């Protein structure tokens, strides 16, 4: 039994002269929900399409279930469920016809009962045409179509983009339902970090095509922190502390954003700088992400005059 379900090796993609993905090395272990994070245009969709063989890499490779993404066999494809960004479905089809169409790709695995139950739950009928559905209803059909073949690997590209809270929650419930079965693996991208925090075991953060973090959610939550140092006199220009990401200061306060710095290292820096007092501030996941992906800016976006 192989333990790495999705793997990319030095995966690189250029669109013309534009570098979209830069030597990405990812390993998604079996049985985990993997949150794939990054700002708009960071390369998430490109990476996902490469994993599924929908794009050709410039260099490097990707594999799913041990099978090279460029030559995925029908058998391996039949084990993968894929939700596209924006839930693109054939607009002219009725839900029932779409089910027949989709089922053909998963001949031995289609769970008609689950599909019917999900439609029922969503108040959708098989005679309804895709083009008559709202965005939310189309997303629900897409979720049912992806879950019905009981995929071993579910890959979802920003599945809850623009959806209301109720439908977003249904997607999360779908993920939890699937992962509770033995040996299933899920990779999904999202910008809604509180959703990611609910369901993900591991996260990857990519920025401008480069992998910036690949760790358990818990490590991410624990390791990115802010520390405030309070000074009586002059704030030192240089501060020597491991894991320093950003620093900001006003007259007496120095605010540091730290990655992976231990309490002991913080205490050492307090002593070395002669700070009068300090406080460690835990951040929520959104602030952690903003701090982690932000570049040092000299000027804020909006400057308020006092």
């Amino acid at each position: 039994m192989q333990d790495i379900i999705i793997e990319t090796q030095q995966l690189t993609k250029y669109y013309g002269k534009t570098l979209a993905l830069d030597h990405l090395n990812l390993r998604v272990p079996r049985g985990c929900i993997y949150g794939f994070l990054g700002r708009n245009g960071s390369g998430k969709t490109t990476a996902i399409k490469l994993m599924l063989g929908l794009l050709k890499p410039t260099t490097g490779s990707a594999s799913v279930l041990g099978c090279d993404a460029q030559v995925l066999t029908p058998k391996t494809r039949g084990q993968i469920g894929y939700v596209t960004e924006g839930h693109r479905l054939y607009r002219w089809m009725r839900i029932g016809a779409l089910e027949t169409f989709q089922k053909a790709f998963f001949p031995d695995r289609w769970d008609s009962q689950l599909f019917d139950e999900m439609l029922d739950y969503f108040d959708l009928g098989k005679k309804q045409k895709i083009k008559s559905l709202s965005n939310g209803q189309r997303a629900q059909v897409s979720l049912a179509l992806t879950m019905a073949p009981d995929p071993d690997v579910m890959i979802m590209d920003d599945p809850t983009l623009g959806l209301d809270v109720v439908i977003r929650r249904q997607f999360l419930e779908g993920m939890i339902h699937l992962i509770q079965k033995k040996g299933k693996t899920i990779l999904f991208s999202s910008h809604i970090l509180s959703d990611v925090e609910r369901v993900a075991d591991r996260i990857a953060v990519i920025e401008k095509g480069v992998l910036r973090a690949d760790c358990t959610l818990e490590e991410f939550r624990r390791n990115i922190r802010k520390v405030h140092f309070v000074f009586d006199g002059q704030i030192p220009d240089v501060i020597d502390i491991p894991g320093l990401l950003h620093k900001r200061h006003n007259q007496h306060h120095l605010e540091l954003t730290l990655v992976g710095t231990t309490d002991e290292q913080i205490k050492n820096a307090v002593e070395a700088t002669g700070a009068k007092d300090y406080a460690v501030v835990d951040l929520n996941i959104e602030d952690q992400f903003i701090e982690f992906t932000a570049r040092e800016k000299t000027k804020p976006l909006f400057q308020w005059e006092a």
Partner: protein
Amino acid sequence: MAFWIQISPGSKQPIYTQVYEQISQAIIKGDLAAGDKLPPVRKLAAELVVNPNTIARAYTQLEQNGLVSTRTGAGTYVIDPKLRQKDAVHISALCERLDSIISQAKLLGLDYGELTELLNDRMKRFYHET
């Protein structure tokens, strides 16, 4: 079940600590009594729409801190308070959390007396006998 878990994703506190704290509070306040069974990990994960490993982690921590005991195949039960351990590891973990609360209080500008008063007041809610 005499208690209700409400989690807030996106808050400063990690989800497993929220689950851990709400269950341990329920045990300490007596809403969950010795011998009560906690819901199975998978059931609670589905109910709260949270990764099952997150729930499992909270349960493991409850077990490590001597609040519950897991019997293979039978589930997770609240332990009789008289049998709970108060060993050095648990005390030192407690001290760490107290330290963080005290430094937060200092940052808020509370002095020694004010913080003592506040702590006393809060403690009275838990130690009914005094």
